């Protein structure tokens, strides 16, 4: 691993952000001594209920807000440094774009803003449109796009300059499961290209499926951070899967409890989630 690759994509230390609200300037602490790091090449989930401080943290990462105290470094550089943003792609929550531009014009516009060289703009634009499955709709005006298409064109503009770090804030909000799965595929494609992805989402199933590590925030504080195994595995409980052919009747369960002293709390059949059923049966060919 090279020296450059060892530098974390994001390194946040004791980050605190206070807002002054109202006429009296009452202090509201949106982020409270938050510390975590995101390594290069991983998909990282930032979770938490509304008002937990996720968006504030993201804005500080993007250099849009200044922290009250603490530090935030992107690839080893201060997040307030404008130049570091050429390595970041960002999709805001519920994105809205210039409706009078076509999808292609929009992505080209953001490519120019991101510093893509003039001779590469067309190529990068087409790549980003293809990655998000928007090539066919690229000539249409953005104002005619559905919510899902807006999200995908948002991902395209975030990816157009081939950033090393992609931050997606609720990329699947308001999208049907199929569109959501397509965005999931785009995230997997990013990971396979070595990109670091930070994903903010309320769709926990998707986070579970896509993320290598997660951080959970609540009321401005970091509750937990780690791999999904570290966070989700309940070490105090075990689950046994009984294969087909063995009927686990209530009598048998009672016998196992009495004879072997097994602490069986409940018995149920494994089932797939509705989302998985939907995807397996209805996914676009």
């Amino acid at each position, binding site marked *: 691993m090279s020296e450059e690759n060892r530098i974390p994509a994001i390194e946040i230390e004791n980050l605190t952000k206070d*807002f002054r609200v109202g006429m009296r300037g009452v202090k509201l602490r949106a982020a409270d001594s938050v510390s975590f790091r995101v390594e290069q090449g991983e998909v990282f989930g930032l979770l938490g209920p509304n008002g937990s401080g996720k968006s504030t943290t993201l804005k500080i990462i993007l250099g849009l807000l200044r922290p009250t105290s603490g530090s935030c470094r992107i690839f080893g550089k201060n997040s307030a440094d404008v130049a570091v*943003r050429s390595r970041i792609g*960002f999709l805001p929550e519920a994105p*809205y774009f*210039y409706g*009078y531009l076509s999808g292609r014009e929009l992505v080209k*516009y953001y490519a120019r*803003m*991101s510093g893509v060289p003039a001779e590469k703009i067309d190529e990068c634009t087409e790549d980003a449109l293809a990655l998000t499955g928007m090539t066919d709709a690229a000539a249409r005006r953005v104002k005619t796009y559905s919510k899902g298409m807006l999200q995908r064109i948002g991902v395209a503009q975030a990816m157009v300059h081939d950033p090393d770090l992609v*931050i997606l804030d609720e990329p699947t909000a308001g999208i049907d499961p199929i569109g959501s799965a397509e965005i999931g595929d785009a995230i997997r494609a990013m990971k396979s290209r070595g990109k670091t992805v930070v994903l903010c989402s309320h769709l926990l199933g998707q986070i579970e499926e896509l993320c290598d590590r997660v951080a959970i925030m609540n009321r401005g504080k970091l509750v937990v951070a780690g791999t999904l195994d570290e966070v989700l595995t309940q070490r105090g409980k075990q689950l046994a899967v009984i294969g087909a052919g063995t009927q686990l009747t209530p009598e048998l369960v009672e016998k196992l409890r009495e004879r072997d002293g097994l602490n069986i709390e409940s018995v149920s059949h494994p089932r797939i989630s509705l989302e998985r059923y939907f995807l397996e049966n209805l996914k676009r060919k």
Partner: protein
Amino acid sequence: MFFLKKIFWIARNTFTEAARQKFFSFLLLLGAGLTAVSLSLTHFDFGDSELKFIADFGFGGIFLFGSVLAVVTTVQLFFTEIENRTALTMLAKPVRRGEFLFGKFLGVWCLLGVFVALMCGVLAAVLALRAGTLAEVAGARGLPPPFVDFGGLAVFGVLQWARLGIVAAMTVAVSSFAQTYLYAVVVSFVALIIAQLQYVFADFASGEKVSFGVKALAGTATKLIPNLQLFNTGEALVFDPAGLSAAAIGCALGYGVIWIAALVFVGMWFFRFREI
């Protein structure tokens, strides 16, 4: 040079967005219509001042509708970017806040340039039409034709563009810290009126029967408020054969550019610290 490219593209995008708004077309049609309607007033006998009367309609239309366009469009484009979060997407790119704000201002200023050019075009057409008729009448009476300097009208247009640039820059400065659309519009219009009445402060500052305190206050206000009356040069440029000296025109333009730069800089300063 990358920062110039970014400013150019932001300005171009802002111009396109503003030019496609119905509000721009509405004000343009209203202003041009008002100028054209002044022709129908020719059945009143205004004598030699008829052309000046028509021109006054045009001059007034350019300033009134231009100012409304400058304030409303600037505020609208600025707040739309923040409310719709397009500003977030933009500022998450390697774009400085100052570049973003300056690009937005330039886009609106270009739109104002188009507005002034079209309004001056309509006014020139109306003046040419009426001046032709009046020249025939004057010729039949053995009188000299009325004097209209269309080159002077073009210079007047450039000066009005500078004047509206100051109005747009004032609005940018107010919008950079304003938290609501309405506040930005109201405060910008108040600032416009104060700038239009700046000469009142100048009168106080130079008045002899005024106390020292008032004099000092008025003197300070004179320095802090741009004098928009300085650009009321229409009559001298269009109807006075002597016109205005190049030095006077240059001074007015320079005055406009300095005020625009100062106000945009103030806007950039406030916007730097704004939490969006």
